[in-house]
């Protein structure tokens, strides 16, 4: 088909795509390059290449404390959003109950809702019930916001699941509990691992919800945020580079899992469904 489409048109399209990719990646490349720059975060051309900022970073106790906090938060948020998101996906797939359409919209809403609303409304809830802000409140916030991701991912996996297998298991005398653990969950394995990976990465990077639910202990993005307001050094480029490399690894792994689970990693469809669900 591309043979009959005009030569100039596809050439124009290629240039456009190249420009968009440059726009998406140049800032990230710049960030990485300047993490090795001896003379600060600006200044062209980069000069005095050095590893000093990384040395400074590895000796920076406050950063690593916040990294540890972020990992605890991400793991706990992952457990919550999977524990609620997997049954939520099952309920959307096979449950019949009044208000199902509303339930579906509510579960998926945080995916499209600006983080400030999720963060603020939870802040008001915690204040109403007298819960002090701490890592726990951030965990509850991330867990709640990311149920949407777990639900969307697992629901997509369920669409590929052969229901006959579950039926066979029930016919052969296994109860629902056994069928759930031995048939349903193993079949959804790849979707669940993929969702877990994505939730972990998103929680690690999350800042808008955490901004409102932070207690005395900082997560990594909030630690960086605090420093940004005081002035910037390439040490922030160095930690950003590490965050980027970690995210890159996690996302590519998630993508591979997604392709393995479903043949195609078309995440746009569910995102679109989240935006406008028909219920």
């Amino acid at each position, binding site marked *: *088909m591309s043979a009959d489409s005009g030569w100039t*048109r596809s050439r124009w*399209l*290629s240039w456009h795509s190249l420009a*968009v990719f440059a*726009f*998406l990646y140049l*800032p*990230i490349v710049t*960030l990485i390059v*300047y993490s090795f720059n001896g003379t600060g*975060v*600006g*200044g062209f051309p980069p000069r005095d290449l050095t590893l000093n900022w990384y040395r400074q970073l590895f000796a920076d106790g406050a950063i690593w404390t916040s990294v540890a906090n972020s990992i605890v938060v991400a793991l706990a948020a992952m457990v919550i959003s999977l*524990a*609620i998101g997997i*049954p939520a996906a099952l*309920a959307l797939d*096979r*449950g*019949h*109950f009044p208000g199902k359409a509303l*339930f579906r919209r*509510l579960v998926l809403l*945080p995916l*499209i*809702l*600006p*983080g*400030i*609303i999720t963060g603020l409304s939870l802040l*008001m*809830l915690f204040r109403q019930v007298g819960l002090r802000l701490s890592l726990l409140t951030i965990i509850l916030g991330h867990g*709640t916001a990311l149920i949407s991701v777990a639900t969307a991912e697992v629901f997509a996996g369920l669409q590929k699941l052969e229901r006959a297998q*579950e*039926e066979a298991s*029930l016919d052969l005398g296994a109860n*629902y509990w056994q069928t759930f653990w031995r048939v349903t969950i193993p079949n959804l394995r790849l979707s669940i691992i993929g969702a877990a990976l*994505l939730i972990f990465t*998103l929680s690690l*990077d999350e*800042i*808008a919800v955490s*901004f409102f639910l932070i207690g005395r202990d900082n997560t990594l993005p909030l630690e*960086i*945020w605090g420093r*940004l307001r005081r002035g*910037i050094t390439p040490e922030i480029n160095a930690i*950003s580079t590490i965050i*980027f490399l970690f*995210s*890159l690894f996690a*996302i*590519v792994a998630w*993508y591979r899992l997604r392709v393995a689970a479903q043949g195609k990693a*078309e995440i*746009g469809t569910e995102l*679109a469904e989240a*935006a*406008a669900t028909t219920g």
Partner: protein
Amino acid sequence: MFSRSYRAAITLPPLLWVTVFLLVPYAIVFFYSFWSVSPGQAIVHSWTLNNYCELLRVGVYLQTLFRSMWIAARVMILSLLLGYPLAYHLSFHAGKRKELFYQLVIIPLWVSYLVRAYAWKTILGSDGVLNTLLQYVHLTSHPWNFLLYSPFAVVLTLTHIYTPFAFLPIYASLEHIPRDLVEASNDLGAPPLQTFWRVILPLSIPGVVAGATFAFVLSLGDFLAPLLLGGPSGIMISNIVVSLFGAAYNWPLGAAISFCMLLLVVGLLFLSERLERKWAFR
């Protein structure tokens, strides 16, 4: 095939969680918006419409809301202009490299918001990468101070962040277009441009609507990019909410703005759903 107890077991825990952590908090925002703050900074739990009156009476709230919508509209249009041709190119002309290119778009989608916003700050600053580059090649002798701390910086950064969001649903809708329709149009002698306008574009409208909704709604509620890159002229509505919940300490007024934003977002989602259904071809 599924028993009632099984259905209850998969339905009740998520239903309960969603009620406690989403529905109840939204209700609290709603109630708070009718309360007020006493001079001694205590929350007064008696009902009043004063907060909503204040939003209409004091010009700065509506002005900032309109500025935020204007910024969000620009981000939306730019994201579509960048995202649509890219999605079209990938879907119809990328050949074997489709998979790789697709991954290259979704990587920035999930990579830290903060890292990317920070990158733009280091590029746009008066002694940032771009200004020193311009001076290095003698395009200018003085740094361009208007780049950072301006609505321009906010629009640029948010466009960078939300272009992949706009791209995804468009790409998905293009991928779902049956290729025989396109071939039929070509076989019947339509020039490529006509095939695009009459066949491909109309069939991809649901994706465009979804992508536009993402870009508009998410940038409308953003408060971190304006704080980091916006300066005084780039303040958005969420920044006012943040200050009302912080230093300005007026939670009820902040709640009133938040509730209006929630209504606006839900209204836009509803509208986009109607539009998508109207244009859906299945």
